[in-house]
């Protein structure tokens, strides 16, 4: 019989391990920072981790799943490890943790933004009100909904004249 404290200790180690698994497309952030960890369950012989992809078609998904499995196996003390992607609930930008938001701003990515309401022009030069991750100004425009990854859009700061990226709002 394994005590509850033992499984709790493993769960803590697993969660710590998840803090160390970087998102391959945003190495400054871990999968935990981005709010992708939906569930960790530890039993006497198994560890299950459910992850939420930021975007359903994220091409880095398989890579992230493999990285998570390897990290969790190191923390699982021989328990069988199962890592799954689940889609319920949906991942939203609100799930990004306070530390994740700080780290994203540190690499020039706005973590969350309010969508402009009503019609916008093409190319999407609408004022998007996303605070610039560099100078904090709200005098910014969204240049395109489409960026280097499906989950990010491109913006421009009119105050400090820097381009920056922002997570697409999903809420």
């Amino acid at each position: 019989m394994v005590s509850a404290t033992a499984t709790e200790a493993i769960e803590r180690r697993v969660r710590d391990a998840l803090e160390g698994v970087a998102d391959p497309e945003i190495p400054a952030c871990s999968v935990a920072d981005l709010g992708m960890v939906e569930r960790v369950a530890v039993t006497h012989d198994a560890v299950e981790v459910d992850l939420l992809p930021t975007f359903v078609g994220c091409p880095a998904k398989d890579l992230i799943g493999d990285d998570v499995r390897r990290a969790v196996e190191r923390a699982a003390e021989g328990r069988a490890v199962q890592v799954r992607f689940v889609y319920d609930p949906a991942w939203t930008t609100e799930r990004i943790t306070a530390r994740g938001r700080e780290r994203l701003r540190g690499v020039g990515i706005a973590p969350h933004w309010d969508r402009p309401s009503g019609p916008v022009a093409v190319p999407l030069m609408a004022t998007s009100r996303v605070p610039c991750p560099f100078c904090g100004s709200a005098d910014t425009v969204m240049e395109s909904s489409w960026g280097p990854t499906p989950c990010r859009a491109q913006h421009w700061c009119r105050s400090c004249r820097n381009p920056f990226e922002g997570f697409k709002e999903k809420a």
Partner: protein
Amino acid sequence: MPDDPRLDLLLSLADDELILGHRHTEWTGWAPYLEEDLAFSSIGQDEIGHARLLYELAEPLAERDPDAQAFGRTPEEYRHAILCERPNGDWGYTMARQWLYDEADDVRLAALEGSSFAELAAAVKTVRLEERYHLEHAREWFRRLAGGSVEARQRFAEGLEAALPEAMALFEALPSEEELLAGGAMPRSSEVLLAEWLERVGRDLEEASLDWVLSAHQRAGGEMVPTSSGEIEAGPTLTVPGVKRLEGRWVHVGGFAGSGGRRGRRSEDFGPLWEEMTGLYRAIPGATW
């Protein structure tokens, strides 16, 4: 053993997304400018991702893994609407098709959020958070082309004329629709969804003074899709498909142009797409990278 009717539903949704997603990605490197290159690459990636999610839901019913479903079927085993396999053609056609398709997708996904098939209802909720960016993209281009230069408007109208008849066939009844409706997996029938969609696109076309493309469509009519064996399907589907204005609403009458997609009927445009899309899978089964 007869197939689970839910497989019919999943494959119609997944195959639409996979095949149109594949067409979208053909703009990578060729779109009119960089932003659109990125837009269609991203939208294609999203759609193919949605297809994969639906193939995962279908896995226990199809007894085939997602890759085998996406790439391991013969052309006649796909269940997408013929609209999705048509070549991208002119930018006007591309944007007309994307607009018609994404409005249609929004109508059917909104209905499926209430599906009794709980896993599908949950997946649809997640998918819709991403689809709204596609819809926004299409609606921006609708405004831009419909309100643009004479040439832009003309080419968009030509695209609409070409895409509209086959877009209606997105709502052709599924082979096992009766069972899907009875079990609540489909909360509303294809016929009801078609009416909802026509009301929506009809209103937008009227506002843009482009609703003549709906009436023009009544004259175009006819069945113009040879099967891959070259045979032209005869019978009731040959009745002239059309849209009529009745009591202030646009309603669908008659058959469907480009019908039969949901039963595996393919146009000659599908062969080359299928050859390319499944080439690696067929050459090296089980390949990973």
